[in-house]
């Protein structure tokens, strides 16, 4: 989550002081990602240093307002028209664990998958309940919860797919784990390299 880009987007909507920015951020994202005020000010300092944000003198209530410079407006506008960085995906702990399990003949991979699956499903149940208890009144939270639910669903599907491949014998547990090909993920590109 790019706090920097989010603050720029909010400031494009009008000048605000620190606490207002934090409140606007949390309101827009359903309060799912709490933001501490220190983080807001460090980010604003950095944006100011980069020439994207400028600050006003303190007002009567001694609040310092922040607003976008021209460069800041441009940066905020560009954000909406560029995709979110796909970059290197964060390490997927479940994929890592199951890949390790498959490479070790003494580990019951089907069981490892089952345990993971049950945990993801429980999480989905919790999210689904909370999501539908709130109805559509809180649209920011509903949107963010839906995103989490769909991602969790994808994980369950991947687990099911892997379990089925294992059951069919398409994956051989404990088979020589030294792959013939190594893959690397860098800068959003997938690179494959053969190992003779």
């Amino acid at each position, binding site marked *: 989550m790019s706090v920097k880009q989010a603050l720029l987007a909010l400031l494009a909507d009008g000048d605000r002081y620190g606490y207002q920015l934090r409140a606007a951020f949390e309101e827009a994202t359903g309060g799912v990602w709490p933001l501490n005020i220190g983080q807001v000010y460090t980010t604003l300092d950095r944006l100011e240093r980069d020439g994207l944000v400028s600050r006003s003198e303190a007002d009567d209530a001694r609040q310092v307002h922040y607003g976008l410079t021209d460069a800041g407006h441009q940066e905020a506008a560009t954000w909406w028209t560029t995709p979110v960085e796909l970059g290197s995906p964060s390490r997927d702990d479940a994929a890592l664990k199951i890949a390790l399990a498959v490479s070790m003949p003494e580990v019951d991979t089907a069981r490892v998958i089952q345990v993971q699956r049950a945990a993801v499903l*429980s999480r989905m149940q919790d999210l689904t*309940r909370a999501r*539908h208890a709130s109805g559509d009144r809180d649209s920011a939270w509903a949107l963010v919860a839906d995103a989490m639910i769909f991602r969790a669903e994808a994980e369950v599907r991947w687990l099911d797919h892997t379990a089925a491949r294992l059951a069919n014998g398409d994956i051989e547990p404990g088979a020589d784990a030294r792959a013939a090909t190594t893959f690397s993920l860098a800068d959003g590109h997938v690179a494959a390299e053969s190992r003779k």
Partner: protein
Amino acid sequence: MSAQTVGDGSGADPEIVLSMRDVSKAYGDGDGRVHALRRVSLDVAAGEMVAVMGTSGSGKSTLLSIAGAMVTPDAGEVTVAGVPIEGASARGRARVRRELVGFVFQDFNLIPALTVIENVALPLDLDGASRATARSEARRALAAVGMRERGKDFPDDLSGGQRQRVAIARAMVGQRRLVLADEPTGALDSVTGDRVLSVLRSMADQGSAVVLVTHDARHAAWADRIVHLADGTILEEARAARPEQLLTGEPR
């Protein structure tokens, strides 16, 4: 933190509507013998929704057909609202099906010669409800699945997803004690599917016991419990956490 061991903490046990004990069912014989269910036990209480997942051929539809007294098990005990199924005569089982159970089948089973509203009102007509009552309840059920305007059409005039919604409306009327739904969201887009799930959920919230077969984890997640069938046995269960555990997921 084990979600598996959490009870609902609501004090008195709610009434068990569907009880299946060590139920087995095999089809065919000799080399071709298929064990569709092996000693499966499952209880579903009033007000509870249970989702059944599992790969194709794992026995989900068989489990549902046995719960609905449409197929007799080879072994085991099944009771619906306290009525034992195995000892019952064919007529007794037909009565259980008609009076206690609402079905949504994998293949809809609407009657082509009847209009949509006649299809939905049918279970009530068979119950001997007055025509006016049957009609008004059928209209309400159709509205709940977003099909209020289509009552006068025939099933053949509808799209697959619309037929599915009509089949759900039919299972809703009469507030059956047990509602059995086999892949009810198969032909639906995700938003319509969610609407159907919220209807099933509200049927459970109003006191029915609901069993939902689905491949879709998002839909299973509406249930209080999720059981996973593999090769005719129940593998695992996930259950919803207590309400106070909700929304405490760590921020990213």
